[in-house]
């Protein structure tokens, strides 16, 4: 593929390996090459994945079948599916499932809608366009701990900006952490702020792949910019939207740092005094690392993995449909 013309690279090899001296060894080598060398090329990724991806998942699966104390490794007792049986009847677990899915909706929907609008604005002629396009990514590269701490200040009861603004219009100060919906909204704001720019850039990339002629034709027909967004951009972006929706939903199942640092009592992993914003990931951490029930925590982790698989499967089916219809429309 690299040599000039179609010169056989084998010609430069040792005489013993010359093709005209075809031997059983050589033929074997050829076949081995065709069959095995691709695997060697992809091996580095898979070796790393097996070591740092697959093994921990499977080992967690094993731990979830045992009763094991965090600080006493090696003293586990095999209990079969007991952890799972207990988990299925655990109200606190289902509470975290509910919270996780509620937060998923509260985070993903506004985030993707805002990202779309933002991408549309960035796609028009603007001054400092490159600066702005890079700027929307800033929230995403900011340290998540810093983000959560700043937002905890913004939503602070006595000295927070949000309550101050509400006070100006005559609303009493809100203890954001204590309510069901106030706490979840505040967490959703954090997540949306962090991920909107990232998704906007993905949309922007997809928008630039849409043929300009479509927009020009629409402009000739006097379609305004928002009408163009609705009738040209959106249909063309369908596969991209499905992709970003899938990725952000999967990301939300692991929501951890924001609710952890948002909690009023420092280091608390119960997600508020009544577990009003405890997510599955926080619950797993509480059981495994705070209360030391490593086996139970591992069972939570495995149920999270299964839910992610289901979500990914649904997402895959939806994406395929979206791509199919987009292809048919083009």
């Amino acid at each position, binding site marked *: *593929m690299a040599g000039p013309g179609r010169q*056989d*690279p*084998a010609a430069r*090899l040792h005489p013993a*390996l010359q*093709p005209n001296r075809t031997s059983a060894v050589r033929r074997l*080598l*050829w*076949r*081995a*090459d*065709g069959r*095995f*060398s*691709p695997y*060697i*090329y992809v091996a580095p990724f898979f070796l790393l994945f097996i070591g740092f991806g697959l093994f921990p998942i499977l080992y967690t699966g094993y731990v979830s079948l045992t009763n094991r104390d*965090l*600080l*006493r*490794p090696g003293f586990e007792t095999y209990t079969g599916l007991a952890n799972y049986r207990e988990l299925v009847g655990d109200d*606190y677990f289902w509470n975290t499932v509910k919270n996780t899915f509620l937060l998923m909706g509260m985070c993903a929907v506004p985030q993707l809608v805002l990202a779309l609008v933002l991408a549309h604005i960035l796609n028009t002629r603007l001054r400092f366009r490159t600066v702005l396009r890079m700027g929307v990514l800033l929230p995403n590269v900011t340290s998540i701990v810093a983000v959560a701490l700043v937002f*905890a*200040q913004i939503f*602070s*009861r*006595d*000295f927070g900006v949000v309550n101050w603004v509400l006070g100006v219009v005559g609303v009493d100060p809100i*203890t954001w952490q*204590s309510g069901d919906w106030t706490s979840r909204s505040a967490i959703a704001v954090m997540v949306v702020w962090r991920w909107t720019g990232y998704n906007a850039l993905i949309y922007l990339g997809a928008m630039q792949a849409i043929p300009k002629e479509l927009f020009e034709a629409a402009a000739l027909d006097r379609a305004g910019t928002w009408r163009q967004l609705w009738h040209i951009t959106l249909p063309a972006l369908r596969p991209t939207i499905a992709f970003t929706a899938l990725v952000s939903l999967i990301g939300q199942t692991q929501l951890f740092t924001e609710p952890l640092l948002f909690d*009023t*009592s*420092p*280091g*608390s992993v*119960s997600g508020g*005094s*009544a577990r009003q914003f405890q997510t599955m990931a926080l619950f797993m951490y509480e059981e495994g*690392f*705070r*209360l*030391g*029930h490593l086996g139970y925590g591992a069972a939570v982790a495995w149920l999270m993995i299964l839910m992610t698989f289901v979500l990914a499967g649904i997402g895959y089916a939806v994406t395929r449909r979206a791509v199919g219809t987009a292809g048919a429309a083009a």
Partner: protein
Amino acid sequence: MFMDAPRKNFMAVAFGLALAVAFAGAGCSKTGGSSADQSSDKGAVAPKTTAPKAEPAPPPPEKIKLTINDFGVFGYKPLYAEYQQSHPNIEIVESVNEYNTHHSNLINHLAAGGGAADIEAIDEGFMAQLKARPEQFANLLDFGAGELEKNYAAFKWNGSLSADGKKQIGLGTDVGGLAMCYRTDLFEKAKLPTDPTAVSALWPTWDKYVETGIKFKAAKTGAAFFDAATNLYNGQVFQLEKSYYEPGTSDVIVDKNPGVKAAWDLTMKAIAQGLSGKLVAWQPDWVTAFQKGSFATITCPAWMQGYIKEHAPGTAGKWNIAAVPGAAGNWGGSWLTIPAQGKHQKEAYELAAFLTAPAQQVRVFKAVGNFPSAIPAMQDASIADFKDPFFNNAPTGKIFGESAVNLKPQFQGEKHGPIRKAVEDGITRVEQGRQKPDESFAQAIKDAARAAR
């Protein structure tokens, strides 16, 4: 795509083989130890063989870096400098974290078998849980800690002793004798006495304390009477002889202990009367409230003085300290421990022994307020006379000294910390108006049982 022309792929075979050889070589060098590997492994030794000018010199004393992880305000900075001067080969690196973060980091590092510091501070709230796993820590008796036993109050020495009495995992730093810190300026505004003796006379019991709060509230100073309901609750519970566990057993008695229920009920009364600032202890709003004078009193274990001084230095002279309502009690106080995974345990022990020696405990008390746990330090004449200008020259040595003498140790079971958190969450739920007191107490009992599993 790449499979259809196997004949053209000699280069690929060659490359693949080379890759395989490289992998195998890398695998071998670990066990076989090729020469190239050795020189990179032991970079410091290599010059000796390659550069002839390096003469065999007497090895300098090995430079040892000791790490120490703690939380809050231990007040050790000047002591490190002194120790490093007398031990030139020792370098001390301290890392301070927030209380809960510090302890959960420690637990995770112990579980992972690596990452813990050479010396780790452990507070009373986590000690019961961690000393149930003594194999994770160095046995300080092996380093000769036995001779220090006579220095310590029995409850402090036993507090970090393993259940079988054979392993001592910590050296005591301080005890958290109880007092009540109050703002003289706010008391004056509310036309209450400001002199510590008169203030102490206001609240011989916690009931009287709450009554005083109702009077304070009626005076409409704009400040709350106390910071957080959990601190009022904990102040009472730490005075009980038994709290969440039947002493000496692993039986959880949250639901059967009348002392806990009484403390809960009085706390509920104070919340209903609107005496609480509804703050959450250790949280940024709470720290700001210190600075702004948003509350008039706070349950003050000795170490709380350090927090106030560090977070609200501008309030110097506005505070004073009175006796705590009820009996004497202990809240908190720490130990220095040496994780078994540490590489310099002997050096770490020497440093820990220096930091916790009676003479150093006296100095720490005078600087930040943490009250000594060593008897010779408690009895030190300079402590009895000590007055702290930050607290209006309150005789803090006398106040905390008396409460340390009268201390009755409380038995704490393995899951004391998580159980306490479960009950505190219950108090916060009522404070936030999420639940009625009875409903919340029922849930707290359930949560406590769950935490104790």
